């Protein structure tokens, strides 16, 4: 998919790019998988408070062997730490935080995002009868902002930014911004607005990998 004129971002670079846009003081939930990486790129001195839907606020990085406590995990069931000022609460209270609109930001992965902000990230087909939804629908519908962090296309080059989602929806009109390995794209009433591209990439080349019309700001 690469050509000679530009360099796609690595997963770490994508996480780092998104992390740069999270200001101090925000309460943030990071989805399982790639979004979890974002925490590694928020410097400790910039206080961002991470929420995990299994009942913690103020989540810190993975523990050293000495810090490790099997009772302290995140929503991805990985061992984590708790920063001073962190707290524990039960599942209903945790989803009150999510559904009550108290999170400044949620970052999720996705199969598809449509130009109207629809997101599909939980089931690969309507015929799949045992899909695992977890907290994705609650997070998408509840957070103040939903940003998606994902590859710009599927492994076989199919666009993931589309006119209309073909996979079962997670939430309607929820996504406000998309960070891919190629670009940063805002979702507005006008559709997809390209805020940034990797150096050397042209709008035409990006459009060729995108399933819906791209616009420039202004």
């Amino acid at each position, binding site marked *: 998919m690469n050509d000679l004129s530009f360099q796609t971002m690595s997963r770490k670079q994508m996480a780092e790019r998104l992390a740069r846009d999270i200001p101090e003081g925000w309460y943030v939930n990071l989805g399982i998988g790639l979004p979890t990486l974002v925490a590694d790129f928020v410097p400790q001195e910039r206080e961002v408070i991470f929420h995990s839907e299994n009942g913690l606020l103020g989540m810190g990085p993975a523990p050293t062997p000495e810090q490790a406590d099997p009772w302290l995990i995140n929503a991805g069931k990985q061992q984590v730490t708790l920063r001073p000022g962190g707290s524990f609460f039960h599942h209903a209270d945790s989803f009150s935080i999510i559904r009550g609109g*108290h999170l400044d930001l949620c970052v999720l992965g996705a199969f598809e995002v449509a130009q109207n902000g629809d997101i599909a990230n939980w089931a690969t087909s309507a015929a799949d009868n045992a899909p695992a939804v977890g907290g994705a629908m609650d997070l998408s519908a509840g957070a103040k902002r939903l940003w998606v962090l994902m590859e710009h296309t599927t492994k076989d080059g199919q666009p993931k930014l589309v006119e209309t989602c073909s996979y079962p929806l997670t939430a309607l009109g929820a996504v406000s911004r998309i960070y891919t390995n190629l670009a940063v794209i805002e979702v507005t009433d006008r559709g997809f607005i390209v805020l940034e591209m990797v150096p050397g990439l042209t709008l035409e080349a990006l459009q060729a990998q995108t399933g819906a019309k791209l616009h420039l700001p202004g």
Partner: protein
Amino acid sequence: MINKVVRDMAEAMAGVQDGSTVLVGGFGSVGQPDALIDGLIEHGAKELTVVANNAGAGRIGLARLLELRRVRKIICSYPRSAGSVVFEELFRNHEIELEVVPQGTLAERLRAAGAGIPAFFTPTGYGTLLAKGKQTAEFNGKPCVLELALKADVALVQAELADRWGNLTFRLSGRNFNPVMATAADLTIVQANRIVDLGGIPPETVVTPGIFVNRVIEVPVDGASVQEKAA
């Protein structure tokens, strides 16, 4: 560095608008944020809708706010109680609007606002005057009333301990409406008996996580003053 601790009462009340809906914690005088109410009086916001369990007593605090004609409407479960002279006078003279809500429905409507539940069904109040005009439905043979979330602009909360992230604990029965109201407003302002270092509240004993809190001011409340006002 996140620091929700404000320097003074003016900073605590900055930006509170005329016409706001204001939640006031406490049950009677216990856990009532008296210093914040005084701060709100000083701040001067008017045409307020106040949500509180009681309508104030004597001529100080909430009663004083009422007496100054700053409150257009009060939503509470128990307006008429010992010493609610100011409220009763205003009410008799049609100078204040009243919405009486069953205490549990009041708490649940606030909780719903904080939890992103726009409406819920409850059997409480069904078939009574307080359910007049409300949508009803039956669940498992039990007739219920549809109640709406009660979201506010500002919450005034009294806490025991607070830290700079806004984590809170409460003292004995001073807890009451405070943690619920803290979740239900766009701007939650807290007067805490004591501000401690971050990490000073053990994480398993935090009652209100800081995410619900915007501003904290330290106001030591001694038992004697609570008692006096309760009497």
